[in-house]
């Protein structure tokens, strides 16, 4: 391969990267270049490769998104509050919950659900005279998994809950009273998703203009601050 071919290839690899650089505001560009200078040769080469993936229109939006997010890792030398690369999965929940009340609320709910479940499971196993080993065998998992659930160290997946309910011959809501609440909230979150392709009945209903327009215009309410 001639030198000019190699350099042409190098330039073509660098084009997505250059395009990205040009689009950056000057301040961000300065910080970006600084971070890049501090990287090893390996990581610099990886950054270029990630830009190539991110710009490749033949790849999926998901792949290109993952590539762009990779650059976050590559250019952040010490990103974490702990002063180390990455985050400790368990500690990051604690840390984030102490900063974000909404997450603290969610963590509180999860802890409560898991401990209620552990109590209910323990009670049911006792009344039905089932050992951890027996239950594990019935639901096709290991005894330590059951033990961890009883210790509130294993949040069961929905399918595990179903299996346990069947094995103990109880309604799954007896094990996890919040189940329908979570499902309802999941459906509310799903309903608000952009880009979703409508189902045929939804499309028919929204194309149907035989329903007359409402005459209601609504009414404003005063603000209490005024």
């Amino acid at each position, binding site marked *: 391969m001639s030198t000019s071919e190699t350099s042409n290839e190098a330039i073509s690899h660098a084009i997505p990267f250059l395009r990205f650089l040009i689009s950056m505001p000057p301040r961000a560009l300065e910080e970006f270049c600084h971070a890049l200078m501090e990287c090893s040769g390996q990581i610099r080469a990886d950054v270029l490769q990630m830009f190539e993936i991110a710009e490749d229109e033949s790849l999926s939006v998901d792949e290109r998104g993952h590539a762009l997010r990779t650059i976050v890792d590559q250019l952040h030398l010490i990103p974490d509050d702990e002063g180390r690369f990455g985050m400790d999965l368990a500690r990051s929940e604690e840390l984030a919950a102490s900063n974000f*009340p*909404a*997450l603290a*609320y*969610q963590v509180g*709910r999860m802890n409560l659900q898991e401990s209620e479940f552990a109590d209910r499971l323990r009670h049911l196993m006792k009344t039905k005279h089932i050992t951890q080993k027996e239950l594990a065998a019935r639901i096709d998992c290991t005894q330590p998994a059951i033990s961890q659930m009883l210790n509130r160290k294993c949040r069961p997946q929905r399918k595990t809950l179903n299996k346990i309910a069947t094995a103990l011959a109880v309604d799954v809501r007896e094990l996890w009273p*919040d189940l*329908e*609440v979570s*499902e*309802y*909230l*999941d*459906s*509310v*979150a*799903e*309903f*608000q*998703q*952009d*880009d*979703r*392709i*409508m*189902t*045929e*009945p*939804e*499309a028919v*209903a*929204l194309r149907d*203009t035989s*329903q*007359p*327009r*409402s*005459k*209601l*215009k*609504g*009414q*404003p*309410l*005063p*603000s*209490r*601050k005024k």
Partner: protein
Amino acid sequence: MSKHQLSADLFTEADQQQLASFSCGDTVVGRACTEWIRGSDVLDSMQRGSGVWLYRNSDDEIVGFGSLGPIRWRWPLPDGDYAKLAIIPMLGIDERFQGQPPGKEWRYSRQIMNHLIYEAHVFSAMQKKPVEWLLLLVHPENKPAIKLYEEFDFVMIPDVRRGAANSCVMKHRLAE
């Protein structure tokens, strides 16, 4: 002005501190509603562009909340184009104020619905092309909610059930 007149103010994360005793009741949807406004789902919804309002009575008690947001769904392929719609992601009234006041004229549920429909028109007017539909999700067994929505010209979309909760979708064709 009636003492039952509600006020509406945009909800912020800081307001969650005042919601410690707010509860929409012990039904599945009531619990979901409470969790939505007191937890993180309301914040995610706001991040997606929803407006959320807290409604208070003349004694400054929190009566309920309502929300209104944009969504962009796509028509089925081969069309695949976007349709801009408005939705009411969630609304709820504290159990102490459900069915209150007894007279219909100042019923809180109606004041809230009227306000949300008004806000849907404000939202629609801000778009390049007016928004035609206001949608919402409702649990098939939530009789008071369905009755309330029907009174405000929402009709059930047939043959649509969403999620494990099997929720129904209702549509309201906004006035011009």
